């Protein structure tokens, strides 16, 4: 469970202060699939960085599974990231010249998991994302969708409490993107995986069970999605005439 209370993050840019987060409070229960949406510069990436223990807040409290995060040292944060958090990025961020299996094994090696177990765990993580037959391939031998699936396997391999995805379909075409969203939906429904999905696209956000809207560092909306869209369904503005596309407020076509 994630509890965030009055979180503030203030950057200094020369003389002026930028309030990237200006008093954010929220709770995310285990097993939820939540979308954080907002335009660029809204603070959603900062919130994700703090939730993912990549950054520390200037003020406020952050508890994960009852443990306070805001006072931890760099090394303690690294340990939390290794044990409790899985990241999926827009740019995949796989190590080049390194096989899919070895990429998935990377978090295990930082978590002290040894040789044989490491391989088995990585292999079964690849199975979950349907890539067990691609384990020896290097990233440059894989398609974009396959690379992102390797990245999801890497995020899953330490069985994290929280899976954090930052625009994971941003670099993918509509069809491949739908496959990736389906993987997140399945992980959430079948395995009870807590997923926090950061996007600026409200259509993608409606694939989750809850949408938290953030603007100017503040939460401006927090609503349940009664009927989440199933991955693979066409976007409404794709069905309508192309002239109406802009209404979808989508900066990027899925």
């Amino acid at each position: 469970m994630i509890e965030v209370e009055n979180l503030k993050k203030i950057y200094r840019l020369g003389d002026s202060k930028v309030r990237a987060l200006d008093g954010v409070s929220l709770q995310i229960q285990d097993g939820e699939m939540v979308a954080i949406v907002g335009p660029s510069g809204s603070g959603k990436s900062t919130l994700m960085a703090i939730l993912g223990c990549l950054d520390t807040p200037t003020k406020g409290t952050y508890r994960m599974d009852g443990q306070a995060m805001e006072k931890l040292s760099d090394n303690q944060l690294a340990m939390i990231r290794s044990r409790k958090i899985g990241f999926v990025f827009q740019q995949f961020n796989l190590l080049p010249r390194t096989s899919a299996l070895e990429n998935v094994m990377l978090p295990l090696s930082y978590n002290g998991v040894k040789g044989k177990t490491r391989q088995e765990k990585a292999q079964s993580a690849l199975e979950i994302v349907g890539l067990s037959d691609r384990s020896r391939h290097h990233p440059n031998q894989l398609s974009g969708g396959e690379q992102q699936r390797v990245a999801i396997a890497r995020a899953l391999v330490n069985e994290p409490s929280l899976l954090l995805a930052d625009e994971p379909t941003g670099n993918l075409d509509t069809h491949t993107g739908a496959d990736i969203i389906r993987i997140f939906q399945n992980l959430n429904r079948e395995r009870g995986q807590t997923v926090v999905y950061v996007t600026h696209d409200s259509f993608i956000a409606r694939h989750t069970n809850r949408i938290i809207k953030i603007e100017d560092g503040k939460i401006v909306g927090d609503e349940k999605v009664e009927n989440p869209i199933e991955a693979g369904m066409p976007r409404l503005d794709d069905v309508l005439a192309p002239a109406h596309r802009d209404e979808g407020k989508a900066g990027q076509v899925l």
Partner: protein
Amino acid sequence: MNFFENFRIALRALTANKLRSGLTMLGIIIGVAAVVALMAVGKGATSGITSQVEGLGTNVITVSTARFFREAGSTTQTLFYADYETIEEEVGSLAKTTPYFQIQASVVNGDRQADYSVTGVTSNFASVNAYTVSRGRFITQQDNLGEARVAVIGSQTSQDLFAGLNPLGRDIQINGISFSVVGVLASKGTSGFSSQDDVVLIPLETGYSRLFGGRAFSGGRRTLSGITLSALDAEQVDSIIAKVEYTLRREHSLTLRDDLGFSVTSQSQMLSTLSSITGTLTALLGAIAAISLLVGGIGIMNITLVSVRERTREIGLRKAVGARRNIILAQFLVETLTLSILGGLLGTLLGVTIAWVVSLSGLIAATVTVDTVLLAFSSAALVGLFFGIYPAYQAAGLRPIEALRYE
């Protein structure tokens, strides 16, 4: 995350950029090779010179007008033939003594011509200087008394002028004056500064009357280039030197306060002077080579800094999935250490090869010693560690969120 895994990561990163890694390593290779080769040459030269000086015999004393290392403002006295006669009287019972006068002269046999040191000597010159005659005979007392135009030549001189033919009985022209070759000396090898085999020896009396001309006389008295003494007992060397110096002061009316103006040295004194000079030279060569090692280290640091910048996102990713600060630090340190140790190994091989080629060429018997190799190798590793620490700290200190967003 153990050392072996870090090593594999380092190797992968280094092989990803083979040309760059190779060029970086080249700096270390050249540095280490330079240290190993130059130290080997220096040590080889030292041991070569000292062994030859030792071969001359430690009981040899040389009296000469020319000091090896003349102090500024010191006066030079003229050494007279009469001084030799007095010294012979004073210490003749303790040492064999022999006078000589040396000039540079052009020596000709047919169409072969070269400049040699031509030395006027007496009959006991060979025994004092430990020369042996391989063919023919040495210069005799009769040669001197009769001012005979005969010459004894060194083995190298014989090779140069006669190209393997028997020189005995043939004539050579020294400054245009004809001398008959009566003997060839056995080879003694080089003595560091000059070869002892490319000599031409003639009777001293013949030199005074026919060859040396006016420069061999001062105020109508015959002068000498030097006197060589060979102590019968090595223990007596120091007391003989004292006696010779005392005699010279007395004969030249010099008080103890006056500068002696002569050089009276034993081989053992020369040996210690020489080895201190060559030791300094060796250290100097090593220091110059160490500078190139330093430059190589800066190259490593430079390229690692570039590498840290290029791989900022990779570092961010590693941190995001749980790599602790020390693991990133170790990863980059292992990388620079791998470069420098591999460079050290290859550099040592190259240095040993260079030393071997130098030895083959016959100039100097370069000697690679274990301590030289250890010194070069460990300084390469230290250089890698030292110049790797700063970039590694930079990498380890990157904030993961900024590193991930780095474009």
